[in-house]
C-alpha cells in the first residue's frame, strides 16, 4: 500500500509539472513533424527514370548482328529506351560525356561495346542489363544457327520483350520519414526516463522531503520501489501518447505486433530509469543530473534519433559509439519487428535492456543500503 501511495504521489509530480510534460510530449511531436517533413526525400525509395536515349554506331556493314540488333532496338523502344544511329561525324563517347545521350553502343564484327554515363548510372545500368540479355540471346541464336539455321528465328523470339524483370523485396514495407521519426522519437522519449530517474531521489533530498520519508515507519525498499514504479508508469504513459499521436495524427506505421513493440519500450523505460537512478547514486549531488542528461543526448544522437544511421556507417569509433546506444538497439530491433514482421528481433533488445536494468538496479540498491538517509 505504501508503494502504491508513493507511486501515485510520484505520478502527481510528473503530470503536474507542466513544463516538463510539455517538453516530454511537445518536443518529440514537433521534431517528428519537422524532421519527418524536411527529410521526406531522404527516405523515399522511388526513383523516376525518364526516356533513355542511346546512340548506336553500326560498324558491321550489315549482317546477322545488325539485323538482330535492329529487332532488339525496335522491341525495347516500346519501353522508352530508344537506340538512335550516331549522327555522321559525331563522336559517340563525347556525346555521352556531354550528356547528350545516356549511352553509346558500337556494333562491330568483334562484338558489342557499350559506353555508359556515370551521371545517369541508373539509365546506364538499365541499358547494360538489356544489352547483356540481348547478347546472351544472340549468342544462343548464333550457336543454334551453326547447327540448325532454321531454328534461329525461334530462339531470337523466345522471351519476347522481357529483357528486364523488376523484382522487389516487400517494397511497400520500408519506413518513410514520418514512420522513421515516429519510432525514433518514441524510443528517445523512453530513454528520457533516465533524466527523470536522476532526480528521483535527489529531488526528495533537495525538497527536504527525504527526511519525512526516511523517518516514516516504512522500509527504504518501499520508497525505492514506489518511486521507480511511479516513474515507470509516468514515462510509459508519455511513450503511449507519442505512439498514439504518431499513429492516428501522422499516420505512422507501427506494424502488426504492437504488444511486442510495447514490451520492448517497457524494458527500455525500466532500463533507462535504472540507469538514471544508478547515475544519481554514483555521481552524488546535482552534477549527476547534468551528466545523465548529456549521456542521454549522446545516446539519442548516436542512436539515430535525429538522423538515420545506416548499418554500413557502423565501422570504427563511430560504429562503436553507435552500437553502445540503447536507442540504437531498440530502433534496430523494432524496425525489424515492424517492417519485416521479425518478432524474434525483439528478444536481443529485451535481454539487453533487462540485463542492464538488473545491473543498474543492483548498483543503486547497494549504494542506497550503504547510505544513511535516502
Amino acid at each position, binding site marked *: 500500500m505504501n508503494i502504491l501511495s508513493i507511486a501515485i*504521489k510520484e505520478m502527481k*509530480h510528473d503530470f503536474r509539472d507542466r513544463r516538463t510534460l510539455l517538453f516530454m510530449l511537445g518536443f518529440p511531436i514537433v521534431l517528428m513533424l519537422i524532421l519527418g517533413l524536411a527529410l521526406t526525400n531522404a527516405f523515399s525509395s522511388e526513383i523516376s527514370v525518364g526516356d533513355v536515349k542511346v546512340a548506336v554506331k553500326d560498324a558491321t556493314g550489315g549482317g546477322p548482328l545488325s539485323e538482330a540488333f535492329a529487332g532488339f532496338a525496335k522491341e525495347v523502344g516500346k519501353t522508352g529506351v530508344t537506340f538512335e544511329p550516331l549522327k555522321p561525324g559525331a563522336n559517340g563517347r563525347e556525346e555521352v560525356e556531354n550528356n547528350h545521350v545516356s549511352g553509346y553502343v558500337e556494333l562491330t564484327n568483334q562484338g558489342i561495346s557499350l559506353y555508359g554515363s556515370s551521371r545517369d548510372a541508373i539509365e546506364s545500368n538499365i541499358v547494360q542489363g538489356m544489352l547483356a540479355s540481348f547478347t546472351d540471346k544472340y549468342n544462343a541464336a548464333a550457336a543454334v544457327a551453326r547447327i540448325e539455321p532454321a531454328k534461329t528465328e525461334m530462339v531470337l523470339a523466345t522471351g519476347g520483350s522481357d529483357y528486364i524483370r523488376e523484382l522487389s523485396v516487400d517494397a511497400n514495407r520500408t519506413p518513410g520519414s514520418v514512420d522513421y521519426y515516429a519510432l525514433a522519437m518514441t524510443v528517445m522519449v523512453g530513454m528520457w526516463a533516465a533524466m527523470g530517474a536522476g532526480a528521483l531521489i535527489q529531488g526528495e533530498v533537495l*525538497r527536504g522531503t527525504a527526511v519525512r520519508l526516511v523517518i516514516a515507519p516504512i522500509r527504504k525498499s518501499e520508497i525505492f520501489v514506489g518511486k521507480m514504479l511511479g516513474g515507470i508508469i509516468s514515462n510509459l504513459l508519455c511513450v503511449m501518447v507519442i505512439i498514439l499521436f504518431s499513429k492516428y495524427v501522422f499516420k505512422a506505421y507501427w506494424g502488426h505486433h504492437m504488444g511486442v513493440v510495447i514490451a520492448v519500450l517497457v524494458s527500455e523505460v525500466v532500463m533507462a530509469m535504472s540507469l538514471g537512478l544508478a547515475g544519481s547514486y554514483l555521481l552524488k549531488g546535482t552534477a549527476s543530473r547534468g551528466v545523465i542528461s548529456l549521456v542521454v543526448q549522446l545516446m539519442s544522437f548516436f542512436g539515430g534519433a535525429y538522423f538515420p544511421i545506416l548499418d554500413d556507417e557502423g565501422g570504427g569509433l563511430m560504429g562503436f559509439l553507435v552500437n553502445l546506444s540503447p536507442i540504437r538497439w531498440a530502433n534496430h530491433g523494432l524496425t525489424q519487428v515492424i517492417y519485416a514482421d521479425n518478432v524474434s528481433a525483439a528478444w536481443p533488445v529485451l535481454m539487453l535492456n533487462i540485463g542492464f536494468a538488473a545491473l543498474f538496479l543492483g548498483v543503486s540498491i547497494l549504494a542506497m543500503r550503504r547510505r544513511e538517509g535516502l
Partner: protein
Amino acid sequence: MNILDIRGLTKKFGDFVAVDNMSLTIREGEIFGFLGANGAGKSTTINMISSLLRPTSGEIRILEKDIAKQSRFAKTNLGIVPQDLAIYEDMTAYENVSFFAGLYGLRGDKLKERAEEALEFVGLSDKAKSFPKNFSGGMKRRLNIACAIAHKPKLIIMDEPTVGIDPQSRNYILTSVRKLNESGCTIIYTSHYMEEVEEICSRIAIVDHGKIIAEGTKEQLKSTITDVKDIRIELKSVQGTEGELLKPVPGVRTVLQEENVIRVHSDAAVDNLNRILKQLMDAGKEIRSVEEQEPNLETVFLTLTGRNLRD
C-alpha cells in the same frame, strides 16, 4: 515515564566527534528546549533520534524501546518538524498531510479525519485545496507542522519551526506548541530565539562541542551563574570596536553588540562599572543609557559556551 532516553550517544564523522558520549532523559509531557550554537551537535543528535543517522555508539530509547531494535515502533511514535520545509509545493495542503500520514498506516476515513484535524489545528482548513507554492512563509511553516502531527505522535521534535516568519505566524506556532503539549505530546524544541525557549520550555539542555554542558529548568540554569552581571549600555552609535576597547577592564568577560546597544558580561564580584563607562567616554563614545540586568537565559548560554546562540 521517560519518553526519550539517550545513553552514551556518540557520532563521529571521520576524526570529527559531532556528538560526544551524550546522555539525556526527557519525561512524558515536557516541552524540552535543546539549545546550541551552529555546529554544537544538536542537529546531529536530532538526526540520530529520528533514525536519519546511525550512532557510532550509544543507545537511544523511545518509550523504553531501543530504536535500533524496534525502529518501527519508535518511528510510529515520533513526529519531526524539520528546520527546512519538507513539503511538496505541487501537492495541495490536504494531499501533503494525507500522503505523509498515510505512510504511518492511516487509511480511508481515519486518514481523512486526521488530515483535516491536523490542518484545522494549524489554521489551514480553508487552504486544504490550495497549493503551498501560493502560501506565505508562515503558512508553509504551519503546513510543515501539520505534516508531522497528523499521525498523532507521542514525541514531536521541532527543529527551529519559527525561522524566517512574521511575528503573527510565530505566535500562532508557539500557541500550537503549547496546545500540542496540553493534548499529551512531549516536545523537543530547538530555536535560535532565546525568548521563545524561555517562554515555552519547561526544561532546557545546553549543548556545546557535542556534549550537554547544562540541563535543568530556566530558573535552575539562571541560578548557576550568580557570579556574572549583565550590563546593558546604549550608545549613540556603535563601531564594532567596543569589545577590544573594554577587554582590558578587570572583570569583563564578553562584550556583545546588538544594534546600538552593547551588553557587557562581567564578574559580579568586581565593581567595574565606572571604569567601563570611562573607557567608552575616553574613546569618544556618547552614552545614552546604562542598565544592569538580571541574568537571563542568553547570559547563561553566553557564560557557559562563550558564544552567542546565533553564532
